């Protein structure tokens, strides 16, 4: 049993994944980087223009605005989703039968496509033909998607509605990994429900929180479909996130160079955030959290 041949066969197993990653991950990434130094309308010839696209995008007041909106969506949706997902996930980790039924119900939003969700909410929130007008409830008949602050709130709400089930599922899995013996020991010491949650469940879920937060934060950088259908970035530019800004520049204004610049910025911000979150999580992520068990 010699090590090198075994190592060789394992390397071969990685080839399909590497090929796919190369073709659909690395190659487009390099392409976008190259395009960001060009001017191209998507139709004619590609001209290298050096840093012109970068200068144009960085000088555009639309960029800091889109960055700010993206950051807000990221931060607020994290703040809303994380506590809700942890509570739901821990609750669903129990083994009573009705919880299985509930977890199926909670799972439903995850089965719908973002576009379908956005169209449905758009219809429900229509100020003239929507839920408020239909039921005659004045409080529901707000101009939900027409006022900047309300539209932002609606986006956060719909995003949370769509993704809390997914993160609950992650936390449910995480909570089930926590050894019963820890809770039993705590009970012997006289810890109550709340004490157990904060002293055992939350610390034990540390890495799950890092994983879930990474998915949330990096995922929120690329929110596009839902916002595109719901508000198209409006009213005005109140909900124009970076991904939407990129699409509008590239495919509506035919400015592939500046759109590629934004794509590169998105990649850099995404990588930085993922690294930062790993740092915040502490350790390498492969340490056992069970050493005390």
């Amino acid at each position, binding site marked *: 049993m010699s090590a090198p041949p075994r190592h060789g066969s394992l390397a071969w197993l990685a080839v399909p994944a590497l090929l796919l990653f190369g073709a659909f991950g690395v190659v487009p990434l390099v392409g976008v980087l190259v395009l960001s130094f060009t001017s191209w309308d998507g139709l004619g010839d590609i001209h290298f223009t050096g840093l012109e696209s970068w200068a144009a995008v960085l000088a555009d007041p639309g960029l800091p605005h889109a960055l700010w909106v993206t950051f807000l969506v990221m931060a607020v949706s994290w703040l809303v989703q994380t506590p809700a997902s942890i509570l739901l996930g821990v609750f669903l980790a129990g083994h009573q039968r009705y919880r299985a039924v509930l977890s199926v119900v909670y799972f439903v939003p995850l089965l719908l496509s973002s576009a379908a969700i956005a169209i449905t909410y758009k219809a429900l929130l229509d100020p003239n033909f929507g839920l408020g007008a239909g039921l005659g409830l004045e409080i529901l008949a707000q101009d939900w998607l027409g006022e900047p602050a309300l539209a932002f709130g609606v986006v956060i709400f719909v995003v949370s509605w769509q993704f809390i089930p997914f993160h609950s599922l992650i936390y449910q899995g995480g909570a089930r990994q926590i050894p019963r013996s820890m809770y039993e020991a705590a009970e012997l010491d006289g810890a109550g429900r709340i004490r157990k949650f904060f002293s055992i469940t939350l610390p034990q879920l540390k890495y799950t929180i890092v994983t879930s937060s990474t998915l949330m934060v990096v995922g929120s950088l690329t929110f596009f479909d839902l916002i595109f259908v719901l508000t198209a970035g409006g*009213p005005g530019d109140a909900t124009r996130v970076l991904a939407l800004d990129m699409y509008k520049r590239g495919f509506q204004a*035919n400015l592939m160079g500046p759109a590629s610049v934004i794509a590169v910025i998105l990649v850099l911000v995404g990588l930085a955030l993922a690294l930062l979150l790993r740092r915040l999580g502490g350790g390498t992520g492969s340490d056992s959290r069970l050493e005390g068990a």
Partner: protein
Amino acid sequence: MGLPLGAALAACGTSGPTRAGGTPTGGGGGGGGATYWYLSGQPQEGIRAGAVERFNKANPGGQITGTTFQNDAYKAKIKTAIGAGQAPTLIWGWGGGTLRSYVQAGQVEDLTPWFGENAAVKDRLFPSSFGAATIDGKIYAMPCETVQPIVLFYNKKLFDKIGAEPPQSWGDIMALVPKFNAAGIAPFSLGGQSRWTNMMWLEFLFDRIAGPEVFQAVFDGQKDAWSNPAAIDALTKMQDLIKADGFIKGFSSITADSNADQALLYTGKAAMMLHGSWTYGMMAADGGDFVSGGNLGFMNFPPVEGGKGDPSNTVGNPGQYLSISSKATAEQKEIAKKFFATGVLDGEEVKGWVGTGAVPIVQGADSNFAGSKDADWLNFVYGVASKAGTFQQSWDQALSPTAAETLLDNIAKLFQLSVTPEEFATNLNAVIGK
């Protein structure tokens, strides 16, 4: 105008692409016959398919294969296909700035010599339809289908209810606003999230205040053309109407694609609507007896007090356009030109369009109107289109895609009152000529 036919498609379009009729040949330059991509959605799709079918029957030697797409899918797909050199032989479009970008990339045929040899084909169409097909003095597209001016629609029942007359001037419009609001009726419906819907207002205000020259200066690339005092006046008047609650509550979250703006008019929630003539057929289909019962009024946009613009002028889509891909084979180009000469807007197609309440861009098409249940409407549209002093193409179609996106973006902000007329002008001056 981003979505003239798209509004219809959103309601009833099939999801494309779907192959329609003809022999199955590959896309792009492949196969012997010509290829033709067009928009899905009835009743327009059936009329387009019918013209191709009749042509194929009459020309067994040179077939056209049609493929249909939904409006938005088409716009993305055609651009990618042209960029990749995989365009169909016949490229359907709206002319103007997008056509110019194809021309600059050398992707479409110059049809000037062909129209020179086939003057009869040119002379039977509305002369106004050729403006958007002409780039730098050369014709790059065959105008086709229908003329679509923007029209001021109103609900006659609501005017009777408050005892008012349709507006004859901008002053009348501003005076009607408080009257309708007091009666709990929104003065104007508007699908503001679509942005080009707001733009139609500016197109008319600019024209009525100072004539077509103001926008022409923008189009011609004159420096600071948006800062023209007439432009600032028009933009200010626009914001005055918005501030006076002239538009339905929540207009900035309503999309034209869902036809909710039309529904507001025919359900009696809003009294008036400035919209494309293509909405007539949809309101007739969806509005119950609203149209057939004679409750829909229509008129050209009224003059503005002291304005210099000719009140017969109109704006909108002077036609739709067919170009020939320069990447097509000689054989395909021949088939396409034969289709232009004998297939496009043949007698059957003209009758088909009239049947949907639309006016084909053919001189004398009004002889088909007699006996139609929509005769009043058809004669009105024909009159507006054929008597217009100037038929301004929709701004977003006339300008390059780059300038159009900045324009629409700033129009949305103007209607949100988040930019002033002066800021609007400054932002747009920056993209003049781009």
